């Protein structure tokens, strides 16, 4: 079936503007993750949704970052008042719920964000 999809694939914005990044997980996957891939920081965890539980927001770098997951499926990552250091590739991943061990995460193609 279809894998994880993300949109847009590329986004160029001006410093101070808000952006929204979208993720469509694999159908039936209850867990959804956002990561950021940047030259200076490598791959960093941002936020994790699992079913109806409260999300793990421990990786969000500032209160300008927020995410929601509607209806247990599609997720939107919002960055308010973007800064140049927000420039990165934002990756979404999804997985089944682990029953006894962490499940494999399947990644989307990413959204490349450039803040001018």
């Amino acid at each position: 079936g279809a894998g994880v999809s993300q949109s847009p694939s590329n986004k160029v914005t001006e410093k101070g503007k808000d952006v929204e990044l979208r993720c469509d997980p694999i159908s039936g996957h209850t867990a959804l993750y956002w990561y950021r891939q940047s030259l200076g920081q490598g791959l960093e965890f941002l936020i994790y949704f699992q079913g109806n539980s409260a999300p793990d927001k421990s990786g969000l770098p500032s209160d300008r970052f927020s995410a929601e997951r509607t209806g247990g499926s599609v997720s939107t990552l919002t960055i308010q008042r973007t800064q140049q250091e927000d420039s990165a590739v934002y990756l979404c991943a999804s997985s089944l719920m682990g029953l006894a061990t962490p499940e494999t995460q399947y990644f989307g193609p990413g959204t490349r964000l450039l803040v001018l």
Partner: protein
Amino acid sequence: AQRVTQPEKLLSVFKGAPVELKCNYSYSGSPELFWYVQYSRQRLQLLLRHISRESIKGFTADLNKGETSFHLKKPFAQEEDSAMYYCALAVFGNEKLTFGTGTRLTIIP
């Protein structure tokens, strides 16, 4: 807190030679370890994970709890192995992945 270390940013190996990409981790419990690979212009994908104990594309990785290592090995490198390799760790119950900084492997023809 979990931590994953990949000491080599870049690794070049001749085709047909053995490959070893190093990965060390720190975590007090029993983590699950993964190797993810990103080929040029492709998405990040799972190569192999500890619990599966499989050999994928000729690669294997053994978890050494004494040395807290999960090195990736292949006896004979192929040109199509050129890619970015990430070692990652997850813990059951809080399954976010903690990644190493990655190793860019280049196979020299």
